[in-house]
Each structure stands twice: as structure tokens, then as C-alpha cells.
């Protein structure tokens, strides 16, 4: 494990977000250290996804700031915003591949357009990352021809091809049939083993236990507890976390 002393690559400080009367995030701070996997768990509506989406400003927080490499990111200026997002990759629950583009072009688009790579170089890069997620035989397929698990792996390759400093996962297996989650989790475990910095919002307690360095438990827009998964899962300090992980355990995780 990389030492906790390493400065955080991505950091949230005092994030707050309200949707009408609902406080989705209430003074949330979180530091992501390089080479670590952070899993965010909690009941529905606890603010997990909002927190994740604030990290790349798909949701703009009402208060607080997000720091990348120690420097605050400014979501109000398009140029700074795009530069921030280019370094903070995201994988969505619904994959969101571009249906009109072949898998290879899905992955090569952002390197070509945002990083200004030559088409040949962008395609080579795309192929490398698609091979990495086990899709070497699907380069020329369209997303509609892939299974859900394959689509999500292609989406992971698309995010990886930007060679981001941090990769955010928003419930990456929640839209998949149970028999397809394994292949996506296997890719994510492999990335974790290669010390890719990841922040994963998930309901999958067993994945969090096996792959995460830090587990964050959220409830009602706040971080209730965080720490090493074994500690949090086996000996939660708060009653809320204990109750949540008990019901998760019973549902077979």
C-alpha cells in the first residue's frame, strides 16, 4: 500500500449541494491519495453519486472546492473545467457509449479531440486500452452489438485512454445482469492491482472489501465513517453503519 503520507491527488473540501429542500451533500471533505482505491457506500439518496459527480463538476457544488494535485479547480471557466475533466475520468452506470461510433472510435475520440493526438496515434492508444480490458476482438463493433458487460469494459477503456490521474466509477455494475458483473469487476480489480487511482460508488460490499484501500460510508449527505474496509465492515463505530452493513450482509454480499 502506498503510504498515507503521500499528498492527495484529488481532494474535496467542504462540499455542499442542495437540490431544493434536500441537502444532497452537507460539508463533505474527502482526500484521494494516488494509487489507492476508495469505495463509497451508503443507502440510496445518501449523496454518494452527487459527491462523485461534484469531483468532475457534472454537478456543480453550491459551496466548497475540489483540488486536483493540490490546486483548486474552477468549474466556471470552460477551459479550466475541460482540463480538469480530461484528468478525472468517469465510468457511468449506464455506460453511455456513443452509439454512432465504433468501439475503437469511442475510445479514440477524446484523445484525438481533447489531447490532439494524431488519428493513428489515438487509434493505437485506443487499441491498447481495449486489449487491456479484453475487447481486442470488438474494435470494429458498434456499441449496440456488445453485451452490457462488454459495453462497460469499453467505457472503462474510453476513460483510461485519457490516462487520467483519477478514475471515478458511478455504480459501474448496477445496470448489469448478475452474470455480467464479474467481468467488469475483474477489470476493476486488475486496475486496482496496477495501482490505478479509483473512486468507486458501489453497492457491492464484497468488491469493496476485496479491492478498496479506503471505505467511505455516507448517509444523509454526510460522510459518517471512513477507514480500511475490514475495520469498517467488521467493526463499524457508528450505529448507522452497523445497521447498513448488517442488511447488506443479509442480502448476500
Amino acid at each position, binding site marked *: 500500500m502506498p503510504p498515507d503520507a503521500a499528498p492527495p491527488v484529488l481532494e474535496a473540501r467542504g462540499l455542499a449541494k442542495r437540490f431544493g429542500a434536500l441537502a444532497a451533500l452537507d460539508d463533505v471533505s474527502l482526500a484521494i491519495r494516488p494509487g489507492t482505491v476508495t469505495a463509497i457506500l451508503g443507502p440510496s439518496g445518501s449523496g454518494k453519486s452527487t459527491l462523485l459527480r461534484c469531483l*468532475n463538476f*457534472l454537478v456543480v457544488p453550491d459551496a466548497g472546492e475540489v483540488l486536483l494535485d493540490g490546486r483548486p479547480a474552477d468549474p466556471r471557466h*470552460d477551459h479550466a473545467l*475541460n*482540463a480538469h*475533466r*480530461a*484528468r478525472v*475520468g*468517469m465510468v*457511468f452506470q*449506464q455506460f*453511455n*457509449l*456513443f*452509439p*454512432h461510433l465504433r468501439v475503437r472510435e469511442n475510445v479514440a*475520440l*477524446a484523445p484525438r*479531440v*481533447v489531447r490532439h493526438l494524431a488519428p493513428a496515434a489515438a487509434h493505437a492508444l485506443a487499441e491498447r486500452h481495449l486489449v487491456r480490458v479484453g475487447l481486442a476482438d470488438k474494435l470494429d463493433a*458498434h456499441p*449496440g452489438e456488445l453485451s452490457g458487460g462488454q459495453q462497460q469494459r469499453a*467505457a472503462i477503456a*474510453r*476513460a483510461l485512454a*485519457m490516462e487520467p490521474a483519477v478514475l471515478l466509477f458511478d455504480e459501474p455494475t448496477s445496470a448489469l445482469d448478475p452474470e455480467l458483473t464479474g467481468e467488469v469487476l475483474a477489470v476493476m480489480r486488475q486496475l486496482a492491482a496496477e495501482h490505478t487511482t479509483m473512486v468507486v460508488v458501489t453497492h457491492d460490499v464484497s468488491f469493496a472489501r476485496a479491492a478498496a484501500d479506503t471505505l467511505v460510508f455516507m448517509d444523509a449527505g454526510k460522510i459518517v465513517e471512513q477507514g480500511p474496509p475490514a475495520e469498517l465492515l467488521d467493526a463499524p463505530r457508528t450505529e448507522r453503519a452497523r445497521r447498513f452493513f448488517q442488511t447488506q450482509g443479509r442480502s448476500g454480499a
Partner: protein
Amino acid sequence: MIGPDGALVRENRSPLSRAPWWLLALLLGAAVLGWQLVTDELYVDIFRRLLSGLGVTVLVTLLAAPLSLSLGLLAALGLVSENPLLRQPALLYVQVVRGVPVLVQIFAVTFVLVPLAIDAAQALGLFPQLRPADVPMMARVVLALILAYGAFTAETLRGGLTSLHRGQAEAARALGLSRGQALRHVLLPQTLRRVLPTLGNDLICLLKDSSLVSVLGVRDITQEARLFTSATFRYTETYAMVAFFYLALALLIALLVRGLERRFRRHAA
């Protein structure tokens, strides 16, 4: 109709019911007309006369189509813009132009807007020699058609853009693409595929409305027919032939659009 499984189109229809009977009926009509062409001197005269107007009809359509698409695209981007300085003018344009008959717009552009624009330009010291009469009727009509169809196209494109799943724009922006890049590489290509049938429909309407140029004496197919009938009083033969000219062009457009649609549908969006 809607089948028991809810499908709008049944997939395994018999070859007999799938055969293009409508096309056969049409071809039969064309064959009768063709027979008249080789046997009746009058039809040859009409055909020659209409053929001399065909170029204008095609030219008006081919000029107005891409320009109205461009204008429609600009207006559609205005319609979906968060900036009220872009959205409100786009709304004004679309709502006004959509609510005024194309023929009235042609008169308005030809006899009001173009002279006004020339006066305004000369007040600013531009084109001092230009007289309103120097602007050909055809150019004015094409301008009017561009304005009219730009508004339809804007609504079509806006509908297509807003029908895309939100995740598409999110994924593009999350990769670091700017608004413009997301539009150009992700949202617009999908929108165009989605609204292609409607755009094809608009193009056919534009082709038919190009006949309105005849009210200003521009010698398209329709104007040639009017001139011919006013001299010969052969209405039935002439307008049957006119109808077939437009029909043939409209079918050509429909087939081209179908072909494009089929090409895109192979990679279903």
C-alpha cells in the same frame, strides 16, 4: 396497424403483401404518360416546355436545402442555448416564421425585406449602385425559402437534440470535450441520424414549395406550365405532366433518404 405483440410493422409479411404495388400503380400511370409522349405531339411539346423549367426547380431546391439546413442548425443551437440573448431571438424567428404562410413570406421578403435591406445598406454607404431591380426574383425567392424552411428545420433539430439521452452529453463532457466538441462529435451526428426521416420530409416539402416561385414569374416547371396552358388551354395534359415531374423528383429524394436511413440503421442508435 399495431400487432398483438405491439409491433408497428409486422416482420414476416407475405411477399405478395410486401410487393410495392403502389409503385406499380405509379409506373402504370407513368407508362400511360410515356405512351402519350411517343404517340401525341402535344405531350412532346408539354414535356419540352416543362423540361426547360426543370433546371430552375432543381436549382431553387438545391440552393435552399443546404442553406436552410445551416440556418436551421444555427437557430436550433439558439433554441437549446442557456443564454437568453441567443435563445430569445431564435424563439422569435422560429415562432414568427412558422406561423406565416410561405407564400406570404415570399411576398414579404421580395417586396419588403429586400428593398429595405438595400436602402439600409445604402444608408451605410454600401453598394451605392445597387437598385432593387438588380436583385433577381429568383435570389429573393430562394432567400425567402431559406428563411421559411430554416424555421422548420430548427424545430426538427431541436426535437432531435433534446430527445438524446442525457448520458451522451454527460459522457462527452466528462471526457473533457468542450460544448462545441460534444455537439460536433457526439450530439449532432446522433441527432441527424434520428431526424433524417423528418429532414427528408422537409426536403420534399421544400421541393414542392419551390413551385411558389412561379407567382413571381420565375420560370420553373410550374411557371412554364402556366405559360403553356394560358396559350393552349390544355390543362389536363399539362398538369398531369407537371404532377409527374414533381412526383418523380419527390420519389427520388424519398429513395435517397431511405437509402441513407438504412445505412445508418445498420448500426442502430
